[in-house]
């Protein structure tokens, strides 16, 4: 066996040790999503619903809630 062969075998074992396991990858993914900023989700929802809210903007309907009218 040549030194090239030995090195390749060692490198394969080294890589197998350091490669992210499915469990490690899943844990990192979960951590990312756990720390996601809820405000961003609100922004996304707002943009998603924007075609509908734009219709309301253009109508003459009064959507002010009653207690604000009283004030």
């Amino acid at each position, binding site marked *: 066996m040549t030194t090239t062969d030995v090195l390749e075998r060692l490198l394969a074992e080294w890589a197998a040790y350091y490669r992210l396991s499915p469990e490690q990858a899943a844990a990192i993914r979960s951590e990312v999503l756990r720390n*996601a900023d809820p405000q961003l989700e609100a922004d996304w929802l707002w943009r998603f619903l924007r075609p509908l809210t734009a219709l309301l903007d253009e109508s003459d309907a009064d959507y002010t809630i009653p207690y604000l009218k009283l004030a």
Partner: protein
Amino acid sequence: MSTREFDALYAAHHQTLYAYFLGRTGNAELAQDLLQDVFVRVWRNMLNLVALPAERQRSWLFAVARNLVIDEFRASATRTRTGEALASLAENTSPSADTSVVERDLLYALDTAIQHLPADLRTVLALQVVGERSSTEIGELLGKPPGTVRYQLAEARRRLRREVLNDDN
């Protein structure tokens, strides 16, 4: 937000990005932290990212990754975090049950030798053996000609053979 697009990006790129960070920093734990940082940014930019073609998504990811490494090096200028490096292998594991003592010593020697490679060589090597990327793919990721990547891979192996196996050829 649906995580479907996020998961697709994560599945496609997490191992390569991790290998890149491992190569650049020489520290597996730090590489995982930086991987998490990249995907926090992915999540925050999903609306823009999903509109991009795959090639530009990858370019965006690696631009973020490069900047995170630069930021980390700046922040760690007064720390010795990268110096801890890959030696965790020797501390934390017996590589596999049937690995002989001689083989294990060689593996530890390899770990140390990789740790002492210049970062450029360590990065292309990590992308190849941990990230399982080809020379052409590594060249695209790092903005280098494939020939340069192949030269660096050969040089990394030449140094490792010399250090670990006392082979000067």
